[in-house]
């Protein structure tokens, strides 16, 4: 019997506040963690039962009575079958891959089932309602026996380590008379990069000496083919550009300033004068665009600096720094 299932108001989606979500790394759906209520169609079905009862009584017809009892029997049966469709299902988190705040993310959930399950609808509830009518299609899927990995779409609201909120897993199979559901808050957070949004970013080139050249300086002007000038050497610049002759001549340490055709290494930063989030979005877009080319780039944030580099690991590191900027 399903007596342990808590019954409450008939509009589950609107009254999500009343239903306590399950928490924990892993969830095994049992009689105590699923809710079940008849759908609107189920109520209509009961009306049909009543109608056929009246016809059967009025005409003293066993045929109509039998039909109404059949519908009633199916109703009773469907209640349990719908609950069974959920019960015994095990869900657990797996490490979620990072993603951008502007695109729908997928959150991986590992589902284990001993038996075949009919169409299950698995979606995150955001705000007050299930995202059923958005473009991120909520589809019903059947679960095969064994273990399977589901990717559940959700739309993050902001950057950072975000938890997608409540997962609602529901089913109305086999007849659509009942909707059985359960809520789960997966504890594992997903890393969300700032949304990508084209716009100005603070750029600086690190010149041969590691100097931050003037913003908007011609990018190809500073290289290391031939040195054109000298400037005082700083300890952190290392020895590769030290002008040994001047040091030997006792004129102090100078560093060579090179000029050449090679692109300089770009350092990106927050555009001053813009709100922080917007500036982060611009940076995110720029990094995404640069990572598609062979350019190397670095990042200077408030307290962090990431030396120029390229490749996907470097990109992810930069994006993570953006995401986690307090």
């Amino acid at each position: 019997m399903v007596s342990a299932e808590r019954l409450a108001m008939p509009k589950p989606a609107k009254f999500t506040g009343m239903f306590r979500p399950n928490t924990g790394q892993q969830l095994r759906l049992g009689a105590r963690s699923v809710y079940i209520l008849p759908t609107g169609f189920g109520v209509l079905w009961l009306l049909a039962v009543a109608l056929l009862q009246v016809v059967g009584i009025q005409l003293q017809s066993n045929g109509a009575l039998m039909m109404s009892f059949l519908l009633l029997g199916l109703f009773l049966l469907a209640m349990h079958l719908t609950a069974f469709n959920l019960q015994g299902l095990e869900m657990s988190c797996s490490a979620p891959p990072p993603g951008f705040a502007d695109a729908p993310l997928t959150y991986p959930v590992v589902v284990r089932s001993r038996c075949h399950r009919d169409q299950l609808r698995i979606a995150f509830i955001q705000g007050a309602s299930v995202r059923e009518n958005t473009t991120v299609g909520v589809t019903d899927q059947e679960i095969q026996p064994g273990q399977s990995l589901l990717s559940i779409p959700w739309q993050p609201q902001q950057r950072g380590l975000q938890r997608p909120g409540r997962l609602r897993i529901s089913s109305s199979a086999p007849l659509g008379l009942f909707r059985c559901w359960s809520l789960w808050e997966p504890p594992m957070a997903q890393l969300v990069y700032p949304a990508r949004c084209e716009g100005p970013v603070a750029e600086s080139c690190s010149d041969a000496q590691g100097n931050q050249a003037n913003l908007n300086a011609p990018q190809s002007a500073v290289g290391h083919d031939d040195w054109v000038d000298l400037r005082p050497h700083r300890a952190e610049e290392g020895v590769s550009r030290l002008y040994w002759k001047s040091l030997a001549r006792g004129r102090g340490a100078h560093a060579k300033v090179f000029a050449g055709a090679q692109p300089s290494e770009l350092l990106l930063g927050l555009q001053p004068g813009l709100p922080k989030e917007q500036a982060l979005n611009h940076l995110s877009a720029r990094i995404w665009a640069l990572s598609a080319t062979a350019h190397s780039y670095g990042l200077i944030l408030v307290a962090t600096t990431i030396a120029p580099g390229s490749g996907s690991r470097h990109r992810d590191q930069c994006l993570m720094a953006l995401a986690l900027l307090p």
Partner: protein
Amino acid sequence: MSGHQRLQWLALGLLATLLPAIDTGMPLSWGAICLMALTALKLREARSRSELRRSSLLLLVITGVMAALLPGLGPSLIQLLTTLLALSSLLALELGGALQVRTLLGRSLRLLAAALPLVLVLFLLVPRVGPIWTVPMGQTARTGLSDRLDTGSIADLVAVDTPAARISFANEQPPPPEARYWRVLTLHSFDGQRWERLPGEDRFDALARSAAGAANQQGTGAREQFWLAEPTLLPVLPWSGQGQPLDPDLRISPDGVLLNNRPPIERRAYGFTDLSAPATWKRQPPRDAALEFPVGLNPRLQALGREWKDTLAPADRVAAAQRWYLSQPFRYTTKPGLLPGPHPVDAFLFDTRTGFCEHFASGFTALMRAAGVPARIVLGYQGGDWVPQVGGGGYLDVRQSDAHAWSEVWLADQGWVMVDPTAWVSPLRITAGQPVSAGQTPRQFSPLGWTLLQWRGIDLRWTGWVMGFNRQDQLALIERLLGKRHEWIGVVLVASLALCLALVLPLMRWTQRRRDADGLRRELDRCLERLHGLGLDPLPGEDLGHFCRRAGQQRPDLDGVLDELARTYLRQRFGPAQPQEERQASSQRLRRLRQQLSRAPAAAPNPQA
């Protein structure tokens, strides 16, 4: 058009095939027709899931209404099929439309089977109530006995070979042919030519008010005789004249007529008990009308009657009439033609002497009244074919062509006595059940006819045990279950439902799990069994791939089959999860391989031979 929509159209089409059979005199039949039109419109328009759901619920409701209108076995089977299709379409909506029709039908069949115990418990134990209000019912033209005996009225009916009633007996023994008289009506009013019922005679409600004594005690014993009568024109039903009806909507009038309180346009199923008890209506003294005789219209008959009245005792007057009938050259025919002249009964008895049961009964009854013996005409059926059923037992098949008229006379010491003058003139008509002189050929045996009769027998049982289960049967059942503690029925009902669920649900889960996990494994086991028959057995610890390779070396002729077997099974079992169709396809492939293995010879063919 999507699959579930096609299923619903099919169900609607099946229901439409039942339409010609429904009786438009019932207001409900128009309701059913309107519902069907509505469903068709809805199906045409339906796009969304909830609309399609609702249209399949509408289909189920129509099926229920149809079950009320057409309770026969044939329509019931069609209704069952419709239910199956409507459920399949609901399943298809819920489970995604990609499933095969066969899978869907299988699932809905399992669902129906699982619901069956619940239906049975509800059907047997949910307390029955009587109709909430009475609906006036329309009349439609239908063949059957009318409430008057006019020249030719029965002769017309004899030409109609449609079913009138079916009778089954608890002891499976039909009465002998000469005792198969099924009375429907008594006619008292005589105008010199035509017999009619008395106006206002035997109304059901009048009987209920006067509570006509012992004649209408409700029977409570076991059912000894079961009747299934086709719709009639009149609110009266055929019966044997013996026993007590088990149905509260049936009463026996003082004239021995079975009055029906339900609309006559329904097919009526009813049972009798206490068949051996003496019938009380036989002792009810005659009405004044039983001696009414219009003087002067049939002078010769009147003279003959007066002669007997003056010379003989009442019982001897009946014997005298029999002797007189036998002495005259009467001839039996269903086409007697019109009786000439102003004295029609005289003309028959003394001039043409050619007639049919209605003429014989009319002449005899008039003669008895002229002779001072209270007499009346009884209309009903005589005969019926005994149809042995394949599974044992049988039923008596009474048709409209068995319509008959006979007489009853009141003898003070015996009560009402049945007299059938037709039997004197044409004994064969009574014993053979054939209007032989009518020029009809006796019913021939034909496979189609035989199948039809068998089918009608199964239909009778279906109606008798399922459709005929009524409040009285239910009370008897509850009495047997609970004795006098009727108030416990609610508890018993809920407990039985819970028990059914507790049995059915684990069974469903178990079969589902078996089907899920082991459809493939079962096929593999069958294949291995077959290989064992060929002398090929896996070694302990040997895996399938290795075994198949080794077996393929032993039997090079089977190498291809074995290789495919191993690949199919291993891919399905250990490959990435695949949709249900794919798994079924793999099972089918294994089945095909097993068939190939079965065809393989027991020993490898010798390539040198």
